[in-house]
């Protein structure tokens, strides 16, 4: 197990917290991760975690940027509007009055009208300039909301795909804070199925091979070296790990739907069956 914040690429810091997922009688963990990317003049926060994560996120931001060695947080990018990604948005905009929110900024003027003047709408192919480092928006190959954008750091080839590559992990196996290839006993098929069932319902009804091929094309075209998903452990060894993650995504899309809410898991556990 490793603790966050953790630098996963030069100037790219992984922050955030896990949440418990009870599925089929097992207790998984899932990240609602965020990332800080530091340029020469400014730093950018990518995602804001779930609503409950604000205290942890705030602490992690202080740990990375609080001593002034790195540029201040002036930018925030959200892949999309769902609260596991945008849950701390209002509080962060309150805390950092100079920060501008970038991305497809649909709905935020309705959710946080007091911050409506700080929204910078972006489409595919636009950039956020951090000074000596830029972040570029991409089409979101694997998404739920239509308005989703992905982000890419060309300098160090880091891809921030939001819901792309969503899979759980096991706290009891010491997976928290580890890169995917550092984990022992990470059954990517099993943990991908959890997310597919709980959060990516649509993947169970489409031909996911189409989206997996498109994702691979993007990774190859850009020369991606690190993948930093919001709901999965980061991937640092693309040739070794990405095929297994894609296989897991395909498995998850085809696995039987069994997950329910917490109540059925509690009941099932009590009865000794899943």
């Amino acid at each position, binding site marked *: 197990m490793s603790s966050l914040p953790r630098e996963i690429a030069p100037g790219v810091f992984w922050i955030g917290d896990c949440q418990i997922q009870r599925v089929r009688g097992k207790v998984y963990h899932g990240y609602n991760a965020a990332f800080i990317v530091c340029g020469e003049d400014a730093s950018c926060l990518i995602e804001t975690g779930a609503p409950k994560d*604000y205290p942890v996120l705030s602490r992690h931001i202080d740990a990375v940027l609080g001593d002034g060695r790195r540029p201040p947080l002036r930018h925030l990018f959200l892949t999309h509007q*769902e*609260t596991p990604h945008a849950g701390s948005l*209002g509080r962060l905009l309150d805390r950092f009055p100079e920060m501008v929110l970038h991305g497809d900024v649909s709905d935020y*003027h309705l959710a946080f009208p007091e911050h409506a003047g700080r929204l910078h709408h972006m489409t595919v192919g636009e950039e956020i300039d951090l000074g000596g480092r830029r972040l570029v928006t991409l089409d979101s190959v694997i998404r739920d909301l239509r308005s989703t954008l992905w982000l890419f750091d060309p300098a160090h080839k880091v891809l921030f795909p939001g819901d792309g590559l969503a899979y759980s992990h096991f706290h009891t196996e010491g997976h928290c804070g580890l890169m995917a290839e550092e984990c022992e006993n990470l059954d990517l098929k099993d943990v991908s199925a959890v997310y597919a069932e709980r959060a990516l319902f649509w993947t169970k009804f489409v*031909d996911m091979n189409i989206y997996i091929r498109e994702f691979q094309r993007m990774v190859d075209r850009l020369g991606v070296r690190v993948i930093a998903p919001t709901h999965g452990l980061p991937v640092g060894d693309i040739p070794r790990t990405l095929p297994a993650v894609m296989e897991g995504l395909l498995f998850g899309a085809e696995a039987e739907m069994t997950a329910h*809410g917490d*109540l059925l898991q509690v009941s099932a556990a009590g009865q000794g069956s899943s």
Partner: protein
Amino acid sequence: MQSDTDFASEPGAVTTLAEGKAYALHNVIALDGRVGHYPISARGYAPCNCYLLKEPEEALLLDTGFGIHRDAMIAQIGGLLDPGTALSMTVMRLNDYLSVGNAVPIARRFGIRKLYATIQTAAGSLDFESRNAAEAETNRALMPVELITGNEWIDLGQQGRRIKFNQSPLRLINTRWIYDPLSRALFSSDMFAHSWSATPRDDWTLTARTDTTTEEDVRRFMLSTRYWWLEGARTDELRRELAGIFDSYPIETIAPGYGFILKGAEIVERHYRMLDEVLRKLDQSRTPPRYVAHNEDHYV
């Protein structure tokens, strides 16, 4: 074009679904390309709809609206809630600011007897205010979770009224459809939300007499919004699940989380059949699957 702040300064209209028993709380938003629930090219106005189901002892609020509508929502609920009536709450889409934006302010103002939810940590998922553990605990305590499976009957009040939660047969993210036998209303969350108005209005109800929606309208809306993935999908499976809902309950009103309310058995049947036909034609057996890029707009 009128702005969202214009509308938010006054409580929106309230539609009676069943006198004294069920109400729609409308709050209008401007469609100007900045609302993710609608096609990017949609222009006009749409209602965000929350619903209040009332019994003498207890009322149940379905959804809490966007933050911009906080004061309007509190005024609308206050105007309907009788003194001494406890308020319970559920949110139809836990991840959507349109559903969850005002949960804490409403809880603070009225008190919440029960927050019906399928996860134990739901109260924390509705808190967009707390800055530390103490504040988080205070806000969590405002909304005691009543854990449900999301696929059962619950009792509302003490007069024998029951409300049915259903796993939504067609969804992007976890959501529930709720059926109220008393009003014969199906609260369909983000489904059947395929309508908006060119002009602001107070009447957000469509009947068979006023409805001009076509099957093509339904198809374009679905594919241009959160159901973009249906093209070439295994929709025949989804149709079977959808039929299960419409075969199980006598539905005379469809009440979506946004868009016009469909009132009357005739228009309900018509819109169900249109949705079913759209799904049938989009099935992989009839429409080849392809990669769908983000933000495809089927209106241009």
